[in-house]
């Protein structure tokens, strides 16, 4: 993430604001930075489900927390900030992926990896499976899940409750429960070690 690009990204995000310099970080800046410390890893991991590179994931994460700053500065609701962060990350992640796909017409790296893993993932009951192979097989199964199921699984793994997942993805509570049960059944059907 080089400096000039980051600055221009902020300008694109907030093109109509006046510029004045301040003296030091405010309490709100400190609060948002603290939330970033807590949630950067979970958000980056979740964004990987969109097939974004780490670099793009980092850029989107920055945009999420800049948006959070604006949201809080405007005095908007502070309830369930974690759910809000994931919801914004979800939407920005979708937009970023669409932009990349439109620009380059290329398959995302994680999709390629998923395909490779799927090719390697044919189970052989006679074969002793190492923990590395086991992990790759599980990840291949996850990558083969419908997109919504995969996202439910990732969000739940990051500790979101069903209501929060439903809000992030814009689906019903029951759909979250069905999706998770379906995904875990597939993982369970992968067989014992």
């Amino acid at each position, binding site marked *: 993430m080089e400096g000039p690009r980051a600055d221009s990204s902020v300008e694109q995000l907030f093109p109509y604001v006046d510029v004045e310099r301040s003296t030091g970080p405010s309490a709100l800046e400190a609060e948002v930075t603290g939330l970033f410390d807590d949630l950067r890893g979970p958000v980056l991991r979740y964004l990987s489900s969109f097939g974004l590179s780490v670099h793009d994931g980092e850029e989107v994460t920055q945009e999420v927390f800049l948006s959070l700053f604006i949201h809080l500065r405007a005095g908007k*609701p502070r309830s369930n900030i974690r759910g809000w962060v994931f919801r914004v990350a979800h939407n920005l992640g979708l937009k970023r992926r669409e932009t990349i796909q439109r620009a380059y017409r290329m398959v995302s790296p994680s999709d390629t990896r998923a395909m490779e893993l799927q090719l390697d993932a044919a189970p052989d009951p006679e074969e002793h499976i190492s923990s590395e192979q086991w992990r790759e097989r599980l990840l291949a199964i996850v990558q083969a899940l419908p997109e919504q199921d995969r996202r439910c699984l990732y969000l739940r793994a990051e500790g979101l409750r069903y209501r929060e997942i439903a809000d992030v993805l814009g689906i019903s509570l029951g759909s979250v429960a069905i999706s998770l049960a379906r995904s875990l059944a597939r993982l*369970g059907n992968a067989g014992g070690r």
Partner: protein
Amino acid sequence: MNDGNSHVSDQDLLSLVDGELSRSHVAEVHRHLEACWNCRARMQQIEGSIADFVRAYRDNLDPQLPPAHVSRAMLKARLSELAARQPQSVWRRAVQSVAIPRRVAYLSGAIAVMLITLIVWQSPRSTLALSPDPQLTPGAALPLTEADLCSREPASESRLVLASVGKRVFEEYGIRNPQPRRYELDYLIDPDLGGSDDTRNLWPQPYSATWNARVKDALENHLRELVCAGAISLAQAQQDISMDWISAYKKYFQTDQPIEDHLAFVKDQPWQ
């Protein structure tokens, strides 16, 4: 994983281990699990799948994450720059920057009015779906006193009813394939106001309507506070919310429309 009719479904077992099942259904499922080795084994298998997935998920992604200090420093710099900017002139400058010819503006306005008229004209009578059918969902409550209710903590999270119960409620309302974005199974009298898990207390509530489940949640919280403060009786709260929850909302919040805060979190789209 086959479920016999008498067994607990995978979905309900997962909701149980995730703490998402309603209180009375938790007891019901626990009773079944005490007697059923088959379902206990399936629950352990689900727990095992969760553990395997979490381990694989973290082991795969965590090593790929770059160190946090670089992006943290970047964020701090950008926040500092952003904090120095004044947000007051956003709209004015935005309007000034978009120079729309007057004729185009009038034409756009006319098209918008026509579209809105068309949408309103073609919309189904959605208000009919905002309230439960009193024949199917008159409301049902547990025999609790104010003291019983207020001595226990309100549920902090939503709870799921058993999948089979939910399916029955949708069927009673003639909805065979409920669209996830349109409905949510809701308690007429919330469990935090003593409502039971009986199907007579459940109905499919539109998820995205103005008078939606979020707005009703706010009413439920408010009524509970009033009951526990001794301002109204539990029976009064249960009667008001089960007779006509929208009228009850208007009465207790002194408004004809849902308060913005009760809708804001759902509707707010800060990235646009």
